[in-house]
Structures are given as structure tokens and as C-alpha cells.
């Protein structure tokens, strides 16, 4: 636990000084921005998935909903982009909260299917209402977010915006994990009946985690599309939800450190595998399957276990 707290301080420091080393490399900065965006999505999902033990395949839906909220507000109504991010978070949060109670009554598999169906509905609606959403081709030339006259229009500035939000999300996530709610959620994952008999308000806690698991992908979706400058429904398909599940399974689904490990891995690995591009989905799938079968706590969990083993052997 102690080393965990130290790591919690380490990350903001690394995030601030990292641009000193990679600031001149556009491709590295680009990767760091994407890692921050994925990480934000995964923090939300870690609560549902790793800590609450529920399989939600809705991240793509909320990611897309948030992205379209801020994209439409900024292009159609001229709302400042940062306010659009807030609106994205609020809208996703409200919808997440409304869906949570009926959805989370369902058993694991049914929840997965219902959330998948929800994403399917949303994606079709976006494609079908092309006069509003631009249909399958989407919307181009999205504006950059700005704070007063300061525009986040260079990769370096965007990097700081993304990581400020990611670290804020991490702070919230970490507090929830350590709070009564987090402990309650872990209890839920172990045994719902047991948790209920200990006085945990199962429905309320689940609704909470599902709401936060909707807000963070929503905001992250907004961050992504205003970074790329365009939006299209192709970025918010089931494939994305499965990718998030893979990130969490490979990184380690029961800790926020695992979410970060996984997010780094999925962004950096394709670059390393660039010369085997054709096979990289296969390699990912093998990695995913291998983690589920042999490393239930993912890379982060395996690394932590190895570290504590090493420390114990040193103390002997």
C-alpha cells in the first residue's frame, strides 16, 4: 500500500517532466496524448469491471455520446469546447445513472449483452440522423479547446490538457477505490448477498460506479475528437469496447495502475509491431487470452507480485 501511495505522487511528476524529453518528438507526444485518453476511459471502467466485477460493454457508447455532445455543441451552437467537455460528462453521467439501476440488476452476461445492444442503438442513431450528426462520414474541422484566449492547439498544449484531466480522473478514481464506496464495491464483487447483509446499499453503490464509468469515457471521447479534429461513428463501435476490455485484462483489471499499464501497452505496441502490422491484431488477441488465463491480475498485478516477492526475499 505504501509503495502504491508513492507511485501516486510519481505519476504527476512524470507527466510534467516527460515533455522535456519527448516534447520535440511529435510522434512520441501523440502517443502520450492517446495514452492519457485511453487511461481516462479505463479509470472509469476499472471501477465497474475490476473492482465491481461487472462486464460492461458500454464504454464505446459513452465515449461516442460524449464525443458527439461536445463536437455538436461546439460546431452547431458555438459553445466553447471546454464547456462542451463538461456537458459531455454531465450528459453521460445522467444517462449512466438512469440506466444503472435497471441494467445492473442483470447478471454478468446479460449486462454485457444489454450494454452492447445500447451501443448498437446509439451507433445506428448517429449514422441514421445524418442531417445532425453528419452520418457515417462524420464532422470535420472541430475547433480546439481554449481557455480565454489560450488555445490548446499544439500537441504539447493538448498533452497538458489531456493529462491534467487524466490525473484529475485518477485522483477521483483513487479516492473512490479507497473510500467506503470502493471497499463496498469490492465486497460486491466478492458476494452481492454478503455485501448486502453487511449493510452495503448494493443498488446505490452500483449506480455510483456505473455513473462514473459513464462520465469518464464521455469526457475522454470529447478529448479525442477535438484532438483529432474530426469525428465519425467508426471510432465508437463494439471494437472499441472490446479494446477497453483487452486493455484492462492485459494491464490488470483490479487496480488503476493496471489501467495505465494496459493503456501504454495498446498505444505503444502497434508502433513496435509496425513491421508486422498484419499480425498485430493476432498478437494482441494472444496477449489478451494469455493474460486472462495465466495472469488474472494482468501485467501490473504480476509485476507487483514479483516485486513484493523480491522484497520479502531481501528481508530474509
Amino acid at each position, binding site marked *: 500500500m505504501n509503495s502504491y501511495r508513492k507511485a501516486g505522487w510519481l505519476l504527476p511528476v512524470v507527466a510534467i517532466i516527460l515533455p522535456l524529453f519527448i516534447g520535440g518528438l511529435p510522434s512520441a507526444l501523440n502517443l502520450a496524448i492517446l495514452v492519457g485518453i485511453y487511461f481516462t476511459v479505463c479509470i472509469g471502467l476499472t471501477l465497474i469491471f475490476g473492482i465491481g466485477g461487472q462486464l460492461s460493454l458500454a464504454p464505446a457508447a459513452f465515449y461516442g455520446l460524449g464525443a458527439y455532445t461536445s463536437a455538436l455543441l461546439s460546431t452547431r451552437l458555438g459553445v466553447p469546447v471546454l464547456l462542451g467537455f463538461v456537458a459531455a460528462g454531465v450528459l453521460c453521467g445522467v444517462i449512466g445513472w438512469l440506466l444503472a439501476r435497471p441494467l445492473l440488476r442483470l447478471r454478468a452476461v446479460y449486462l454485457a*449483452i*444489454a450494454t452492447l445492444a445500447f451501443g448498437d442503438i446509439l451507433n*445506428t442513431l448517429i449514422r441514421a440522423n445524418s442531417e445532425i450528426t453528419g452520418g457515417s462520414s462524420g464532422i470535420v474541422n472541430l475547433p480546439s479547446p481554449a481557455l480565454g484566449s489560450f488555445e490548446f492547439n499544439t500537441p504539447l498544449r493538448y498533452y497538458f490538457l489531456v493529462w491534467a484531466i487524466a490525473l484529475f480522473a485518477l485522483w477521483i478514481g483513487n479516492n473512490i477505490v479507497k473510500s467506503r464506496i470502493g471497499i463496498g464495491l469490492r465486497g460486491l464483487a466478492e458476494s452481492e448477498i454478503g455485501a448486502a447483509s453487511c449493510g452495503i446499499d448494493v443498488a446505490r453503490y452500483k449506480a455510483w460506479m456505473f455513473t462514473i464509468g459513464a462520465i469518464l469515457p464521455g469526457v475522454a471521447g470529447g478529448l479525442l475528437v477535438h484532438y483529432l479534429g474530426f469525428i465519425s461513428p467508426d471510432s465508437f463501435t463494439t471494437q472499441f469496447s472490446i479494446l477497453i476490455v483487452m486493455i484492462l485484462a492485459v494491464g490488470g483489471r483490479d487496480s488503476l495502475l493496471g489501467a495505465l499499464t494496459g493503456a501504454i501497452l495498446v498505444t505503444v505496441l502497434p508502433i513496435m509491431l509496425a513491421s508486422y502490422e498484419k499480425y498485430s491484431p493476432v498478437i494482441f488477441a494472444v496477449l489478451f487470452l494469455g493474460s486472462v488465463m495465466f495472469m*488474472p491480475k494482468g501485467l501490473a498485478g504480476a509485476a507487483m507480485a514479483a516485486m513484493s516477492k523480491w522484497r520479502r526475499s531481501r528481508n530474509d
Partner: protein
Amino acid sequence: MDLSAALQFVFSGITIGAFYAFVALGVSIVFSSSGIVNFAQGQFVMLGGMVAATLAANAHWPVPVAMLCGVVAAAAGGAVMARLFVLPMLRAGEFPLILVTLGLGVLIEALAVVFWGTDPQMLDSLLKIEPLRVMGATLSSDSITILCVLAIALIAFTQFLRRTRWGRAMRATAIDRDVAASLGINVRAVIVLSFTMAAAFGGLAGALLTPIISTGAQSGFQMTLKAITAAVLGGVASPIGAVAGGLLLGMIEAMSSGYVSSTYQNVIASVVLIVLLFLRPRGLFTALTRQA
């Protein structure tokens, strides 16, 4: 209302519904024996269709032989999946098992894309029958084929469950795995058998559908979603329910495509699914099939 158009929608609903019924039957067989909802089921549909199409188009094998090979390939995939990936994880709990089937789905799709690329493949019809014309509506030769094969497969499967040793073992396992094991039934073998049969049904469905709608390497997950929707509609633990659910889903889609808009046919099916999950999480037909 135009009667012949309505009948035409019924015909296309039955055809696609029969296909869903096959795939959903596989979901239900696996769920009954192992409690696992197989997220890779749609990949076996894809595999059956793609193997059959490749053998027929590239190797110029006769269509029936190519289709048979598709089914065998899918069944082999199901057996390997169950033996190597599912059995070792049986004790890990529901959540990791879902992830394993999801992971295998991703892996099979990734391999298929490497092997076949992303272009859809076509296949010739299995039988060339005279189309059935009723009041201006046409039931095509391919539709008649898929309906006949579904009927034969269903009869064979029920007879298998009723009359054979393995069928009875499967039914016992579905009722209670622990009691079945204590009675000397090899539950692990039953699970492998159920995955194999489910994959074979999926592959058969894929091979029969490819002449109607071409199959692509990335079509698997969509099929999984349809199959699970159909199975949930009918009650996932009941094979008869799954077949009924498949036919119902096909009908809902055909009707909404015909009378509302083809863009919204998936939306309507998904809304029906979500509403149903909220109201009757055990499926529509469970009360009917309970006595059967």
C-alpha cells in the same frame, strides 16, 4: 394493407429467423451444459461460411462437400476451444470465462482477417429448387433449403437428446452439473461435446447463409450479438426457446425493415432485447418450455 408484401416479409423473416435459430441453438446448448455464454459462437458461423466459400470458389470443390468441410472445420474449432481454453478455466468463475470466450472470438477473427482479408466471400446455392410462389410472394430456393435443413437438424438433435447415452448425459448435466458428475457422468467430456455441437450448428448456419448474404471475416461479433439476443428472447437455458427466439428475432427484423425502415431494424431488435431483459430476464418462452 398489401397482403403479398406482408407475406414476403414473413418469408424473409422466417429465413433469417431460421438462421438465427441455428446459431442461438448453439448458444443455448453450451449454456445448458456449462453455464457459459459463448461470445465466440458467431466466429464459428463465420468460419463455416468462409471455409465453405473458399473451398467452393478457389479449390472448385462441389458445394455440398465444401459446406460439409465448413461444418467440420467449425466443429473442430469448437472442440479445440473447449478442450484447450474452457476446461482449464472452468473453476475460475463466470467473469474470467466470459473473457476467455471473448478473447477467443477476438483471436479467431484476427486470424481470419490475416488468412482471408476483409472482403466478403460468396458461395453457390446448395440446392436449386423451384421457388415457392404463394399469392405473389416468393420463398426462394435458398430459403427452402435452410428451412428444411433446420427442421431435419432439430429433429435429429431432439432424438439425440432423448435416445442416446450422450444425449441423456447432456440433459442431466444441464439440470445439475454436480449431481450429474456424482452419478458418474463425465461432465468435462459433455462440455467439450456441447461446444463441438454448438460450433457445428453455427458452421452449418454460416455455410447455408453464405449463398444468401455473403460472409466476411469480420462478421462474427455481429452474429454473436444476434445469437445471444435470440437466445435471450427465448430463454437461454432452453434449446426449444432458443429456436423460437431465433425465429421471433428474424420476424421482428423483417417486419421492422418492411414497415418501418431497414436502417432501424437493428435498433428495434436491440430495444426489444433491452426491454425484455428488464421485464423478463429469463426469456419469453421459459414458462412454455418448462414442462417440455
